[in-house]
């Protein structure tokens, strides 16, 4: 459904160079100034050299792998107390905060560049850590080990990731408070990734299975960083197609993309292979405005947006909220209230999969009615508008994540000295007291963040309405039910955070 295998859609509007420093402009629908792009390889000295190094990915993944390995050791042999164990503090506080507030909005899927999960799988598959191999058997022109099966077509979407993530998040309380549960889940993903790399070709695990990848793909649409081809003409005349098939300088895109035709961030893992394989230096890294990709291609992606928004709401209640009953239900593995847990899980799944999509569909349907004009396909409106939940959801997640680091960030300092909670004192900071950092200011950060999310949701939603309804009157009328819904959702978060 999400035609992402060898993307056949036409590339985005051709880029027009406007002079110095690699700045290019794209014509924008709906008037206003053209959206800008800044070619980072042209303006940052040394970056072009760096991304072309074959050792780059190994150099960033390897330290991460060692840390991950140490975290697993700490989870198994360290203190069972979550806030005294580095795996909990570094993964669920530090990593999560950096991921959602910095990496996703500003650096797209850069986490996938440094992620240790596929390390061994990819090593076995490629038979190389740094270099490339050419020949058969393999994929494209690259020689590879393993079965190299094609991923089943029926699963070539993010539904598996949707359900996987929702399922994992149902048990989030155990996951984020108990080191051993984190070890099983993270270690399990590591093992699954390794096995799938040997069975299926390239990064099937990342693209279709990894639960983290699912929301990274959706939210990276907003990101200010993109990998794109510079000139479509160069690509169309290119006979090598190394970005697709691989060549002596690099592996063909492990993410099943056709890099030269890439027009969305979703399934680009920023592995930098296409920057290396392109014989014409036609691939580049660009800075761009926030919320530049706005096209949701299938229901799987829409539902990811529903799931993520629901989870942000649910976590704000179970983890940040004051209500004992919900906490007891969510924490059933300790309290034993499995009946309550079933109710909690059922309402979570119902809200994410049925209620929110249902209300959303209702407002789209009403909007189509109010907007009038020639009948428009509901599916097109539903998919197009479901993008509005992407900026709103991302910013709600960011607002949710700030308290984690402001309140519990001081654990990072003590855990650095005593990573396993065994009474070590490596850096002399083991006794650093739990000190929230100005938690009273959090509300003043959260309100503007939600405001930014709502602003982008309303703006992209209205622009989409314009593209479908034409006249201002029908666009406003058509978008109005959804706009009210979005504002109400934002106010709901406001109530939880500051009300």
């Amino acid at each position, binding site marked *: 459904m999400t035609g992402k295998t060898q993307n056949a859609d036409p590339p985005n509007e051709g880029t027009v160079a406007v002079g110095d420093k690699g700045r290019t402009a794209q014509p924008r629908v709906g008037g206003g100034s053209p959206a800008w792009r800044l070619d980072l390889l042209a303006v940052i000295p040394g970056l072009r050299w760096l991304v072309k190094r074959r050792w780059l990915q190994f150099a960033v993944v390897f330290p991460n792998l060692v840390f991950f390995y140490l975290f697993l050791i700490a989870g198994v042999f360290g203190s069972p107390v*979550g806030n005294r164990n580095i795996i909990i503090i570094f993964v669920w506080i530090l990593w999560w905060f950096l991921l959602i507030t910095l990496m996703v909005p500003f650096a797209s899927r850069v986490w996938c560049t440094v992620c240790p999960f596929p390390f061994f799988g990819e090593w076995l598959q490629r038979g190389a850590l740094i270099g490339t191999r050419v020949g058969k058997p393999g994929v494209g022109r690259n020689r590879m080990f393993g079965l190299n099966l094609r991923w089943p077509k029926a699963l070539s979407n993010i539904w598996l990731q949707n359900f996987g993530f929702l399922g994992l998040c149902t048990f989030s309380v155990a996951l984020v408070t108990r080191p051993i549960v984190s070890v099983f889940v993270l270690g399990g993903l590591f093992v699954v990734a390794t096995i799938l790399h040997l069975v299926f070709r390239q990064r099937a695990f990342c693209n279709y299975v990894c639960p983290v990848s699912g929301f990274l793909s959706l939210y990276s649409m907003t990101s200010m960083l993109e990998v794109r081809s510079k000139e479509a003409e160069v690509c169309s005349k290119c006979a090598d197609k190394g970005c697709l098939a691989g060549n002596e300088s690099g592996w063909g895109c492990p993410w099943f993309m056709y890099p030269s035709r890439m027009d969305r961030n979703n399934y680009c893992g920023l592995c930098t292979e296409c920057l290396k394989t392109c014989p014409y230096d036609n691939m580049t890294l660009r800075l761009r405005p926030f919320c530049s990709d706005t096209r949701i291609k299938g229901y799987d992606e829409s539902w990811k947006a529903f799931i993520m928004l629901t989870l942000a709401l649910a976590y704000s209640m179970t983890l940040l909220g004051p209500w004992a009953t919900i906490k007891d239900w969510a924490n059933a593995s300790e309290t034993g209230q499995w009946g309550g847990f079933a109710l909690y899980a059922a309402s979570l799944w119902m809200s994410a999969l049925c209620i929110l999509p249902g209300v959303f569909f209702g407002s789209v349907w009403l909007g189509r009615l109010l907007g009038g004009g020639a009948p428009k396909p509901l599916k097109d409106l539903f998919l197009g508008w479901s993008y509005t939940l992407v900026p709103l959801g991302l910013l709600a997640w960011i607002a949710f994540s700030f308290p984690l680091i402001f309140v519990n960030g001081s654990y990072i300092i003590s855990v650095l000295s005593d990573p396993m909670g065994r009474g070590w004192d490596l850096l002399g900071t083991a006794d650093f007291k739990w000190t929230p950092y100005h938690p009273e200011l959090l509300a003043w950060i959260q309100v503007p963040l939600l405001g930014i999310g709502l602003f982008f949701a*309303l703006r992209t939603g*209205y622009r989409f309405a314009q593209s479908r309804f034409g006249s*201002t009157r029908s666009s406003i009328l058509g978008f109005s039910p959804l*706009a009210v819904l979005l504002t109400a959702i934002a106010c709901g978060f406001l109530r939880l955070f*500051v009300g």
Partner: protein
Amino acid sequence: MSRSELLRWGAGVLVVLASTVIGAWMPRASGPPQVRRIEVKARQYAYDPPTIEVNQGDTVRLKLTSQDVVHGFYLEAYDLQATIMPQSPYVEVSRPSRPEEKPEKLEEVEFVADRTGKFRYRCSHTCGTMHPFMSGELVVKPNRLLGGGVGAFAGMLIAGCLLACVLGNGSGEAAVANSGRSPHAIP
């Protein structure tokens, strides 16, 4: 940025600001200042009551007890930290801003609710698995931040609507023309 665009942004920001101010001005306290004595029972991993609502200027006296293990009570914005021992009528109260001072043994903690808004009290003494998420809420009315926030969000809706109307059909038609050519390219 062109002049007309600047004007548009300016007008939009003005509308949102006005709406924020109106929203922040709306909430009212529910009565004159008074002394409130509230018993807060801590247990793994929540406080009862979960939310304490008071008015600005109220003197709040909290009797803190624990129903199971040792808990803490760290009230943000009010520089107050207490350790709640189970089966003890006393709590050990300290000021986080003055770590050098010895904690005081008190039967009740008292403070004047002079800052408005929602503030959380959190457990500050490791009390089990969900300890980092054990918190309750102190709401000091009038909650101007909430009012202002709702005002701002409603203002964005209004500003968007007004601006779209003022801009008229010009860009709308351009959008249709563009969308006719390439239905998917809506940056």
